[in-house]
């Protein structure tokens, strides 16, 4: 028997999709049933009260949560997001309902034993409600009380070899795609780089010193499975600088129909025979492919790594051998006022232990942004405010045609007098006398 009547929430269950309301109800029931077995450290009816509070918000069309406060674990400025309910008398179970962010393993590889430990810990000391995973990739544990935070932190760090993730004005938990562990397109070891930079920048991850949040994401190839180009202040995207490797026999096999395009992914419907001209060559955004005497040719200089041809014919086309990554800067995906994609900063860089070349770029950017960034301003906004040229200056990266997004449209590179042999002098008043505004 549920503690609160929830007619509005019940209606959400009637749709065709799995409903979080059903999940929460099941969890509420399970907590009530198991209360003789498990010594719950926070109220048994936390999930009941969560449903009740949500129903109240739906009725009143007003939120009853209060955000933030002095919650956290000792010595860390992030990882815990405080949440309180402004109706604690009515819903005592959710008077405190703090969120904990746990740093997910790189590539999100778990074993079931670890997942069981996390689930048991969270049932015991929290609400049992989780979010696998948050947008940044962390394991999100939803709903516990202040006294439990240090206990959970101790258990995670001492017995589970696990750390909290980032929140607040920190480096957020870095995230990587599966990379070389599963994927033939990976141009560098994403999990290794993610791990190394996580360890290197522990202080930035746990102790806030930035104007605002800062995210790293590592995509092994331009397919971008963790969407670094759209969601991270610094995107690391694998690429290669030699030629796409072509197996002409396999190309012929695709054309002849012996090999299924896209690894057979479109087998659910009859799309007719594979047409390499229509489905690959004509779709190349830079028109750098053509057939010549039954052989596929690519002008690799023009390739922009859209990955379409490699995705369609994985047996015939493979990434080059001279691999590394590109670094792009300034993406953000805020809920309010619009998303921004990151801009290319480093066209190509090798990825080799100890990664000093990569760390140098990161630290130059941080030094600039920490100095010049306004409070609650993302890197992308600082770049817009001070200009891309300024970013090139602070990172010491020479301007490159590949930095230009639209020729003759965004001329952000301006010559300075000292950069031009002989310099130039001009009197703006004299110029204006002949060219009025």
């Amino acid at each position, binding site marked *: 028997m549920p503690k609160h009547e929830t007619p509005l929430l019940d209606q959400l269950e009637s749709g065709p999709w799995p409903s979080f309301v059903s999940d929460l109800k099941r969890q509420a029931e399970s907590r009530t049933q198991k209360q003789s077995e498990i010594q719950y450290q926070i109220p048994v009816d936390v999930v009941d009260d969560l449903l009740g509070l949500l129903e109240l918000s739906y009725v009143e069309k007003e939120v009853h949560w209060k955000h933030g406060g002095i919650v*956290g674990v000792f010595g860390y400025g992030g990882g815990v997001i405080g949440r309180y309910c402004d109706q604690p008398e009515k819903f005592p179970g959710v008077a405190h309902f703090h969120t904990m962010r746990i740093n997910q393993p790189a590539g999100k590889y778990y074993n079931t034993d670890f997942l069981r430990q996390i689930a048991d810990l969270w049932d015991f000391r929290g609400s049992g409600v989780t979010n696998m995973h948050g947008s940044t990739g962390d394991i999100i544990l939803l709903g516990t009380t202040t006294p439990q935070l240090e206990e959970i932190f101790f258990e995670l760090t001492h017995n589970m070899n696990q750390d909290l993730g980032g929140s607040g004005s920190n480096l957020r938990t870095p995230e990587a795609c599966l990379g070389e562990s599963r994927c033939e397109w990976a141009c560098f070891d994403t999990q290794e780089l993610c791990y190394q930079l996580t360890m290197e920048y522990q202080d930035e991850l746990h102790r806030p010193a930035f104007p605002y949040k800062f995210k790293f994401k590592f995509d092994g190839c331009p397919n971008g499975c963790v969407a670094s180009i759209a969601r991270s202040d610094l995107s690391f995207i694998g690429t290669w600088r030699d030629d796409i490797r072509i197996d002409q026999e396999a190309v012929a096999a695709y054309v002849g129909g012996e090999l299924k395009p896209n690894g057979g992914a479109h087998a659910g419907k009859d799309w007719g025979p594979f047409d390499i001209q229509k489905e690959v060559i004509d779709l190349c955004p830079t028109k750098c492919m053509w057939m010549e005497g039954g052989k596929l040719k690519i002008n690799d200089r023009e390739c922009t790594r859209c990955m379409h041809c490699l995705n369609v014919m994985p047996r015939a086309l493979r990434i080059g051998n001279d691999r590394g990554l590109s670094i792009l800067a300034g993406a953000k995906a805020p809920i309010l006022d619009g998303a921004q994609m990151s801009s290319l900063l480093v066209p190509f860089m090798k990825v080799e232990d100890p990664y000093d070349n990569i760390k140098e770029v990161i630290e130059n950017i941080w030094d600039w942004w920490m100095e010049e960034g306004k409070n609650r301003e993302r890197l992308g906004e600082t770049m817009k405010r001070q200009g891309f040229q300024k970013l090139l200056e602070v990172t010491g990266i020479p301007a490159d045609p590949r930095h230009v997004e639209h020729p003759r449209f965004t001329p952000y590179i301006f010559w300075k007098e000292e950069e031009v042999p002989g310099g130039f002098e001009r009197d703006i008043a004299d110029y204006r006398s002949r060219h009025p505004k």
Partner: protein
Amino acid sequence: MDKEAAKQEIINFLESKSGSKTKFYFNDFTKLFPDMKARDVKKALSELVQEEKMMYWSSGSTTLYGLKGSGKKEE
């Protein structure tokens, strides 16, 4: 400036402001020390937190610093 002197200056700054404001962004502290590297300012602040003279305070999206025990209390 050595770290101890910087830590004292941070405390003095916070005490002088305690009547009007109790939570500060990290950048408010770097402005106190224009000649110091931001990374060193952070180390001084982290030590003050370790010594329990200061504490972190979260707005939910941004973490700020304040003197321990000042301002809004935990509910």
